């Protein structure tokens, strides 16, 4: 049982991650990330 859990758990998380990625792309979050990333983040570089 423990051995099965060790195989199934990371597999489940992997599949969940892929599904979340797809859901995020569908919701337009990838675009949000890209738009934020292509402009210099003044907060990140200490300008505010």
């Amino acid at each position, binding site marked *: 049982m423990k051995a099965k859990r*060790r195989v199934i758990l990371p597999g489940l*998380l*992997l599949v969940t*991650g892929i599904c979340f*990625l797809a859901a995020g792309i569908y919701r337009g979050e990838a675009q949000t*990330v890209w738009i934020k*990333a*292509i402009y210099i983040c003044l907060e990140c570089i*200490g*300008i505010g």
Partner: protein
Amino acid sequence: MVRKLRPLVQIGFTAVTNGYVFGFLTGKIYTGPLKTACVPGLNCYSCPGALGSCPIGALQAVLTGGSRFSFYVVGFLLLFGSIFGRFICGWLCPFGLVQDLLHKIPVPGKRKNLPGHRPLVWLKYGILAVFVVLLPMFAVDGFGQSKPWFCQYICPSGTLMAGIPLVASSEALQAAAGALFNWKVGLLIVTVLLAVWIYRPFCKYVCPLGAVYSFFNSIACYRYRVEDTCIRCGRCQEACQMDIRVWEKPNSPECIRCGACIQACPVHALKRDPLFSPKAPVCSNVKKKEEG
């Protein structure tokens, strides 16, 4: 071999994920489609060379935009974490590489940990909860906008890889730099100095991304295993710069998978756990003590 291979992988991965050389030459950042994707390590997307997005920065970007949950960024974190766990910290993170290099500087009085190490390792979880999640979500202004609190007030990786190169190359940014920039440079200086004497202080006590990946260490595809031949000599813990009792917790949340313990074991009882191996992680000597 791992001792020689790891720095090469660290340098190579940092070079690949920050390979936009044109950015360093002109002081401009990459704006192409690769920035849609998150890189696994703490790598500020405002770094002139960055080709991808920082997962912590991206998470805050979505949360400050009004969303309560980011499927996209959490998906990346689940993907990376479930496969690698904190292997990413030890092998793929640029700021981890910086700290490793700093710690090679020969100075007297080096130590593994800061005083108060055991409670201090919990600080990174607090920083993750407060500065990465709660403040970006709830500390909003009158227009409903928030800011990336961790990136703005704490992240020394952003200061080193983005702030300093960009400010140095732009007179306009130099004129705009004020108290916040000084605060962040001060934090960076403290981190750099600490990293010379203490092994990876940022990874141990501050990094929210390390905090995230730590949840995956015991269940990720990449794990360690202790064989029954373990004699509990403690040499693995002596060799471990993260100060883990490896023979008891080979998949500790603090383990960055550097492999030093495996190299140090005199009876070769520590193994990298093959993918989907069903073998138990605890050696029989420890099990007998727990049962007795």
